[in-house]
């Protein structure tokens, strides 16, 4: 039997949702019929609107999909202005204030506390400036990711930006591909550093050479069925296909159509293509693609450059794009660390101004929740680096700041089990002040996800933290499972979950003890990931050693039972109710 969600999608989905969304916005939240709320909230996702968790009824998270994380000159200012004007709700975040934007692990932007009545005005402003929320959530082509500095990167094998732009044009608002069984996440990378993180996407195009008519041509190898969610992490599987840049849309469209037709619509938990690849195997995916979805002979895989990958590998060069790097045109791109990806609206506006002053005005977002200012000429570099804003968003951050990634968590997210972003900021500050990494180790990635959906990509970090609960002195408290040794690269590896249910206030101590053991026991020049690889789970569990320290955690209680964890009066009964609605909810 098809699920309710499938039934709603077959009634109204895709572009046509928009008209009704605007009617509801005009007539007020209460005009959504009582017995149609679930259906409409599900559909709104297709337009990038996700209802915030309970206690925050009537407020939405809005996701703006910026393909490959590219914000053209002027667009960041627009985002900052929208955040400043509309992303203000009844709750104030003690670290980030009243209005902020989140840069996400899929190179998008999220705003919170958006009211339905403001949506038409926001959409108008976004669209006037070439931005959109379309398909940012929901069962369709999501924001396409890749190396954010595509087209500029000195390390590039092939410029993926025209390919990404083309895919974005074709598959956003494309009726044949708008209603898929589940989300469809695509990565296209043209650089040899692996920064597109193709391995953890539903569909990945990675640079590869192939001999065509006696000549070496650069194109892409194709992998299918990666993803991290739900305790079922998978690496994308090699389907032995090489494709020229011109034919990427045919192969991508073919695979998305294959997923549309063969994906599981009866069970949403089994719907992602990773499960279809499990069931079929890569050979059958290739055969079906060839026989039913493309009208030319597929080439077999070409020679890839995976052994050159460095991004998120835990060793070697360029594990992220923070810092000053050469562009191929002689200018520079400067990656700035945005701790847990969140930036106050005023800072967003300042950054937009700096990008215009020192660069071209363009800004790009990485999959490590950071921002990159591009096109900074050599002679402007020193002055740019001396700007006060860069003290906070540093191109040379402490490893613990630099390595931090965190998801949304109990602040806004329905699925969450623990507080995340603010906690990760507290962790990073404590670790920076109290822990020294061994000589020569200057990257240490810690990713915190509030549940198994894995939005913060915990499984590919040195230290993976995932929301749980435990009892401490008999009382329930927020806790974290600790995984170690994950990373991407030629031979990607998911973290091994070695220590379960560490009370949150003992996690910084646990990491300090772990780093101490690493420093004491490591082989000369050994990376943390290699160190983890040569120990078994019990040995690693012993290194973790949870411990109370002077770190204090103000959010030990069930932060999900509050309407907003940081409110003075935080109980569910004190929830403000639906904005603009006389009765509340």
């Amino acid at each position, binding site marked *: 039997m098809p699920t309710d969600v499938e039934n709603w999608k077959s009634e109204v989905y895709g572009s046509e949702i928009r008209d009704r969304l605007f009617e509801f916005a005009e007539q007020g939240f209460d005009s959504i019929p*009582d017995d149609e709320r679930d259906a409409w909230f599900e559909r709104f996702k297709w337009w990038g609107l996700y209802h915030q968790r309970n206690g925050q009824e009537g407020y939405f998270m809005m996701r703006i999909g910026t393909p490959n994380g590219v914000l053209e000159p002027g667009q960041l200012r627009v985002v900052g202005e929208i955040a400043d004007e509309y992303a203000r709700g009844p709750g104030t975040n003690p670290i980030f204030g009243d209005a902020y934007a989140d840069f996400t692990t899929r190179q998008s932007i999220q705003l919170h506390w958006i009211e339905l009545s403001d949506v038409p005005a926001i959409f108008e402003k976004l669209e006037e400036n070439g931005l959109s929320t379309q398909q940012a959530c929901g069962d369709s082509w999501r924001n396409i990711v890749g190396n954010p500095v595509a087209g500029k990167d000195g390390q590039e094998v092939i410029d993926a930006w025209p390919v990404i732009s083309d895919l974005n044009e074709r598959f956003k608002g494309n009726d044949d591909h708008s209603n898929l069984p589940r989300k469809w996440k695509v990565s296209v990378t043209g650089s040899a550093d692996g920064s597109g993180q193709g391995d953890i996407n539903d569909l990945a195009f990675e640079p590869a050479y192939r001999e065509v008519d006696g000549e070496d041509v650069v194109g892409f190898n194709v992998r299918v069925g990666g993803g991290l969610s*739900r305790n079922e992490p998978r690496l994308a599987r090699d389907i032995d296909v090489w494709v020229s840049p011109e034919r990427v849309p045919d192969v991508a469209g073919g695979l998305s159509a294959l997923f549309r037709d063969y994906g599981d619509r009866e069970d949403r938990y089994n719907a992602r293509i990773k499960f279809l690849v499990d069931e079929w195997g890569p050979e059958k995916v290739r055969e079906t693609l060839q026989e039913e979805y493309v009208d030319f002979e597929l080439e077999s895989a070409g020679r890839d450059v995976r052994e050159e990958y460095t991004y998120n590998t835990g060793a070697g060069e360029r594990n992220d794009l923070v810092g000053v790097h050469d562009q191929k045109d002689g200018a520079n791109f400067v990656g700035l660390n945005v701790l847990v990806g969140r930036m106050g609206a005023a800072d967003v506006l300042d950054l937009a101004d700096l990008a215009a002053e020192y660069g071209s005005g363009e800004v790009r977002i990485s999959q490590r929740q950071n921002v990159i200012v591009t096109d900074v000429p050599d002679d402007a570099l020193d002055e740019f680096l001396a700007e006060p804003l860069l003290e906070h968003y540093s191109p040379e951050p402490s490893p613990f700041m630099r390595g931090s990634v965190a998801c949304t968590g109990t602040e806004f997210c329905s699925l969450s089990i623990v507080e995340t972003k603010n906690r990760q900021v507290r962790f990073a500050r404590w670790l920076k002040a109290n822990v020294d990494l061994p000589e020569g180790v200057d990257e240490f990635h810690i990713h915190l996800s509030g549940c*198994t959906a894995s939005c913060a990509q915990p499984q590919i970090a040195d230290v993976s933290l995932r*929301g*749980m609960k*435990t*009892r401490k002195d008999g009382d329930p408290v927020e806790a974290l499972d600790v995984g170690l040794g994950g990373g991407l690269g030629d031979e990607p590896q998911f973290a091994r979950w070695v220590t379960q249910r560490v009370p949150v206030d003992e996690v910084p101590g646990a990491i300090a003890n772990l780093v101490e053991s690493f420093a004491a026991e490591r082989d000369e020049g050994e990376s943390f990931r290699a160190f983890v690889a040569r120990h078994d789970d019990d040995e690693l569990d012993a290194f973790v050693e949870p411990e109370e320290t002077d770190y204090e955690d103000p959010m030990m209680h*069930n932060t*999900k039972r509050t309407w907003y964890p940081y409110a003075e009066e935080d109980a569910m009964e004190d929830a403000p109710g639906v904005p603009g609605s006389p009765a509340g909810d």
Partner: protein
Amino acid sequence: MTTRLRVLDDGAWISVNDARKVRVSELWRLDAPDLCECELTDLVVENFQSVGVDGSTVEVRVYGQCIACGAAGTTGWIPVGRVRGGEFAELDRSAVRRVRR
């Protein structure tokens, strides 16, 4: 009058008549010998798998983990509340819940 029961947002909550009524991240005390060997399972609810109704009792199957022993898995049908006259009332969260079938 029929009651609309749904698992939504990837198992984050149970909707009863288009309102969010039961959510993940709670701790439930369970009498669930199939799930773990503890006398009572101390279950953190991570995902709702399915929802149904038996008479007036709303029941769910959930994925979760016993925080006392670490065993994880999907439960049988557990009562979470009652529907009377179209209104849903959640069971006392601290009460021990028994797997019914």
